[in-house]
């Protein structure tokens, strides 16, 4: 009787270790770290021309579209500091004022951020900001 139990315990432990390993390696290679506008502007020289990600909210009234709705510029803010951003490409529907986005790209010498990717958060919250 005891032997049977051991068999199941061993099996269970193996599964737990396997899943733990999968989670660990999965997390290690798929976490995106990002900075806030304040952190970036505090040390511009460190970030200049390096590929980085910034997360912030789109400042109210700052979105400027060109006619074909593929080129746009906007301002990204964390409430304290603001970075102007330009972007070219398809923009998700959820992209609007106040929304939180993670953008990937490079900071240029004029302190403008040239975004190559908009990792807009999915609309986890279809709510009004009150």
């Amino acid at each position: 009787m005891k032997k049977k139990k051991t068999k199941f315990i061993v099996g269970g432990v193996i599964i737990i270790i396997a899943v733990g390993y999968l989670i660990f390696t999965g997390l290690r290679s798929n976490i995106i770290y990002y900075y806030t506008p304040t952190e970036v502007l505090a040390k511009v020289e460190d970030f200049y021309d390096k590929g980085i990600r910034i997360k912030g909210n789109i400042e109210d009234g700052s979105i400027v579209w060109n006619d074909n709705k593929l080129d746009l510029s906007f301002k990204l803010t964390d409430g304290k500091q603001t970075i102007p951003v330009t972007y070219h490409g398809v923009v998700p529907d959820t992209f609007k004022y106040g929304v939180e986005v993670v953008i990937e790209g490079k900071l240029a010498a004029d302190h403008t951020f040239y975004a190559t990717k908009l990792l807009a958060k999915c609309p986890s919250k279809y709510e009004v900001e009150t």
Partner: protein
Amino acid sequence: MIELGSYSLYLCFIITAYAAVTSLLGVALKERRMMDSAEAATYGIFGLLTITSAALLYAFVTDNFEIKYVYYYSDKALPMFYKVTAFWAGQEGSILLWAWLLALFSVLVVIQNRHANRELMPYVTAVLMVTCLFFVAIMVFVTPPFEALFFMPPDGKGLNPLLQNPGMIWHPPSLYLGYVGYTIPFAFAIAALCTGKLDDTWIKTTRRWSLFSWLLLGAGIVLGGQWAYVELGWGGYWAWDPVENASFMPWLVGTAYMHSVMIQEKKDMLKVWNMVLIVLTFALCIFGTFITRSGIISSVHSFGESSLGPIFMAFLSLILIVSAVLLVLRWDMLKSENELDSLLSRESTFLYNNLILVAMCLVVFVGTVWPFVSEMARGDKSTVTAVYFDTINVPIGLALLILVGICPLIAWRKTSVQNLKRSFLLPTSISLIGGILLFWAGIRQGYPLVSFVFCIFVVVTIFTEFYRGTNARRETTAENALVALGRLISKNKRRYGGYIVHIGIVLLYIGITGSGAYKIEKEVSVSEGEEFHIGDYTLKYERFSQYPTQSKVVNVAIVPVFKDGKQIDTLTPEKNVHFKHPDQPVSEVSIHWNLKEDLYLILAGFDVGGQASFKVVINPLMVWLWIGGIVMALGCIVAIWPDKKRQRVA
């Protein structure tokens, strides 16, 4: 209306508090009259919450913008359909919906069990009333739905255009029905722990409630995917967003529970495990409501600021601590004399299924809360990408799929190698032949090939089950094949309903595999009259049209689709600007679908009379995902369907 709504809510709070306290006191003092009084109070609570909900609904329908909630989620031009559904567009209304459903279910449980489970019922009532009190208290103290502005605005701010989709009437209520429904088996589990009546009475009594909750939660998830697919316009249906994960996790654990209770009923084992599963399911339902309603998971700061965060956390901790303490106190009684006989028995396949489902849930949970935990612990800011969830869940999901096929092939208790060989022969050979054909046809990537081969394996084993059962009936009853099949299912609804659900799962996997592994997407920028190609399709951007409606400006591209030189359809993707939300253009995707694939077209950008940009996607086998969802729902309904001669289980 504001007065009626808020007074009935206050009154409801008093009665719910009364019901919670008397039911707890009743069981503590063993005072029958107090227990009965608490049960009777559920009717009052349901009545009052119905009045409260009706008042809020009336406020929406009559454009009473003096109420803040109505002001923020509706406006005059909103079609009546969306005015009604705006009820649950925000936090206040969602919580009211939760509470109302819980009150409704409580009344149903009280009626169902008026002559049954008299020992369990006082505790069940206590759990239900404490939960109800939690939600009513939130509405009274934290997010009052009837909070008034001090003036009457001429018009409301309008409903978020993304929520103006027919999915709005089905998706959220379906999820909530599932979340709330799981309160019932949880309440009976706690009652069983308290009374020490730890046989399978509580499981049998709530079997239909758990199936019902599982069905509605699953349907809600699939409907949410469908909504995202047609409304959010990025070409996919699932993005491992925290809100999606929040509904997926209780469903996974609920699925594990649904399987493992069968082992308790059959072999009187896994008692502790079943308790753990139902407690986890319910806790994850509360967690899900909490993530959806507060959106806090993305940042520690919004958690601190959100008034709801700490309250939900406190309630969650209460659930977990009370359940854990009860489990420990009853540990000796929950021990089972029986043991699993062999690693190769049907029982063990149930166990593996459970481990896999819980592991999947753990993977999703870690990925969902990681940014939150890591910011709390180390102060760095991060997000976990969808790649994490995909890379881990795909192999785990495939293991789960093959188990679905293996399970019916293995006998209960113990299987001899001889038996195994015989029963595996047919499905293995057919799926191997299928695999070779698929490889020959060009399916050569590892995971998709494995997935399709497993799908064939499962289908063969399930059809064999149906075939054997039908044949056995025909031999003894001389019925024709169809009658025999029908009677076979109706005599064993639970078993064959389950098999039908499994067929649905296979279809779901086919859809996920096809659209996941063989998706083609392309972004193009073309002028009027210009053509572009994707797959076998030729699309022509014929013209652009712009016209205003009552609530928005419609921008639509007319795009005929050709295949083999013949026009087969005309797609009309739109990008509309709602007057109330000019900064948020809303895409209406246009889809040409058949059983083989979806051609999915998004109007990404445009110049009036000039260029337009499109994103065009081919999602192979996409429609099978939705069909799979429907088949699963049907199978589950078969399993829930009452037998003709109603035995009084409840």
